């Protein structure tokens, strides 16, 4: 999402070309006291029409005065709405006059004035959604509570808070108390966050323990199905399958149902459409492979059209030519736009098949071909497309392949490589752990992989975990005794 002042936009309108079709763009009309909006409204209308060519979701940031100056002209209003303007960010700087401080009740004269203004605006242009942006002097933060509760009662679903100029301890505490008040008042159906265009909004949201802001990251399980048999998987690995076969009928039935469940498409769409504006990262993963969901591309399309960065964890075996092209189109020049974490557990088919015993060589070839095609599509489109990280879960069966894996990742055009020391979730996975007598060998191969990555310039995700493994398992002269005791913790 992007916000620009009117002046900046007039100078450089081309900056909005990078916006996705429903990505939010806010044109800030405040902060220009010298502009006479009555006179400049035609120029503004042209600007709105330009914006509408790039995104369907845009808003004007204004105060009540600017609103009346623009929207009192019916024809102008009609044209603006026709261009797709559906929302305004209404900036309300509350400055409760001192005389109402004593015995203030939530129906204070100032509140009445604000509510009247907004109601009148909603009546004047019912097609226009009003997003309230509330600001106030630091010593009046506690007055915001009743205002916000009233807006909630009026049906406003989301409001923004404009933080004070200085983030002092006192103001942060005042906002914390404000949020406590709102929780006690039972304000549940409203997203309240600090103005996400403000450079410190994340600090404000975190320091005030603002739970009303909603999640910045969403993880969505769309499908529990998978046709692969990765040995490290707690559901589809050969040890897991064996364990389930030997358990009672109730468990087997439960597992069968679990393995065949997918998220209802309408429900999934509803969740994605009702996320707060602040959500900027969605991960698709799950118990199974998300690409097995019949409407997978639809989900990606919904997310990408909102301009939200998307990450998908997949074995990459479910692509076809059509989906390669479609998903590349939904990608971005920014590697975080549409990023796949490719779960490929070997640099060659021999190691690959050791880690997924039910697969065949053609699966490995299909995955390699897919990755190659995705890189090709990116190069054809000037870097726009799908980016990926090669992920390899290291365990007893494949750790010797670590260095070759890093080199392959570079060749195949991966953005990062992720060597993940295996985590044991369940009892029957314990045989996959690297045994004691091989731990030094394990550390040796990891250090070779790290050196190779540095040599060829391959970015390693989560280097820290690998270096920890090295420091625990590589014998160092004086530290041997120390590392031995650390392992017991």
């Amino acid at each position, binding site marked *: 999402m992007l916000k620009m002042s009117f002046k900046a936009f007039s100078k450089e309108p081309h900056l909005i070309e990078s916006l996705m079709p429903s990505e939010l763009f806010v044109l800030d009309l405040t902060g220009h006291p010298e502009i006479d909006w009555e006179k400049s409204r035609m120029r503004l209308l042209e600007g709105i029409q330009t914006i509408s060519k790039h995104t369907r979701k845009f808003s004007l940031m204004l105060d009540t005065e600017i609103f009346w100056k623009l929207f009192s002209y019916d024809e102008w209003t009609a044209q603006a709405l026709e261009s797709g303007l559906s929302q305004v960010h209404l900036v309300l700087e509350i400055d409760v006059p001192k005389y109402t401080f004593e015995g203030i009740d939530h129906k204070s004269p100032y509140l009445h004035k604000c509510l009247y203004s907004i109601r009148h605006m909603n009546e004047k242009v019912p097609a226009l959604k009003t997003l309230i942006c509330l600001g106030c002097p630091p010593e009046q933060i506690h007055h915001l509570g009743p205002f916000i509760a009233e807006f909630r009662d009026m049906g406003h679903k989301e409001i923004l808070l404009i933080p004070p100029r*200085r983030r002092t301890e006192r103001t942060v505490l005042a906002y914390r108390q404000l949020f406590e008040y709102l929780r006690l008042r039972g304000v*549940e159906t*409203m997203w309240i966050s600090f103005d996400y265009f403000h450079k410190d909004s994340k600090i404000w949201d975190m*320091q005030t*323990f603002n739970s009303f802001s909603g999640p*910045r990251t969403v993880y969505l399980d769309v499908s529990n199905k998978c046709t692969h048999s990765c040995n490290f998987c707690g559901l589809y690995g050969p040890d897991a399958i064996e364990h389930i076969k030997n358990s009672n009928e109730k468990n087997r039935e439960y597992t069968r149902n679990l393995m065949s469940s997918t*998220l209802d498409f309408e429900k999934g769409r509803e969740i994605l459409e009702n996320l707060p504006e602040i959500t900027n990262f969605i991960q698709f993963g799950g118990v199974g492979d998300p690409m097995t969901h019949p409407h997978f591309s639809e989900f990606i399309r919904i997310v990408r059209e909102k301009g939200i960065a998307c990450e998908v964890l997949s074995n990459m075996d479910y692509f076809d030519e059509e989906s390669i092209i479609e998903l590349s189109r939904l990608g971005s020049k920014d590697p975080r736009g549409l990023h796949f974490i490719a779960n490929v557990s070997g640099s060659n088919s021999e190691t690959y098949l050791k880690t997924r015993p039910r697969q065949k060589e053609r699966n490995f070839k299909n995955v390699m071909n897919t990755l190659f095609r995705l890189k090709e599509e990116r190069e054809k489109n000037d870097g726009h497309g799908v980016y990926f990280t090669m992920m390899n879960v290291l365990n007893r069966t494949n750790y010797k392949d670590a260095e070759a894996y890093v080199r392959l990742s570079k060749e195949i055009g991966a953005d990062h490589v992720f060597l993940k020391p295996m985590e*044991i979730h369940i009892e029957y996975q314990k045989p996959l752990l690297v045994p004691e007598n091989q731990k030094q060998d394990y550390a040796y191969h990891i250090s070779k992989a790290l050196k190779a990555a540095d040599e060829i310039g391959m970015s390693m995700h989560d280097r*820290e975990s690998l270096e920890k493994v090295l420091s625990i398992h590589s014998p160092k002269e004086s530290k041997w005794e120390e590392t031995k005791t650390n392992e017991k913790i």
Partner: protein
Amino acid sequence: MGRDEDKREDLDIGIMNGDVASDFYKKAPCTIGYTYVRFEVTGDVKACCISKYPMGNVTKDEWQNIWNNRQYEAFREKMKSIHKNHFHLKDPDWGFCQQCSHRFENANNHALLETPYDPEEE
């Protein structure tokens, strides 16, 4: 805040085991409840990807109501002060949240929390 939910003995947040332990994550408060949510295929809403207990289910409640409900609030409050060695989080076989896959996000949140305040005006 003294609500009954705060005393839930079974607010177990799940466990992870691994060969790597990081001192930071043993004592740092967990802020994942403020910035992350996981939806499962069944519609269950979970606060963290290894959490055992759902905060609600989207087929039964509005997801926004779930995000702001008491159980979720209790989780956020509790995780701010709980030590990762706490018995609620510790499983005798597997250890505690030391290899949490959200530690990067949590670390980012910590950096935000620790950003120094502006000085009070004279």
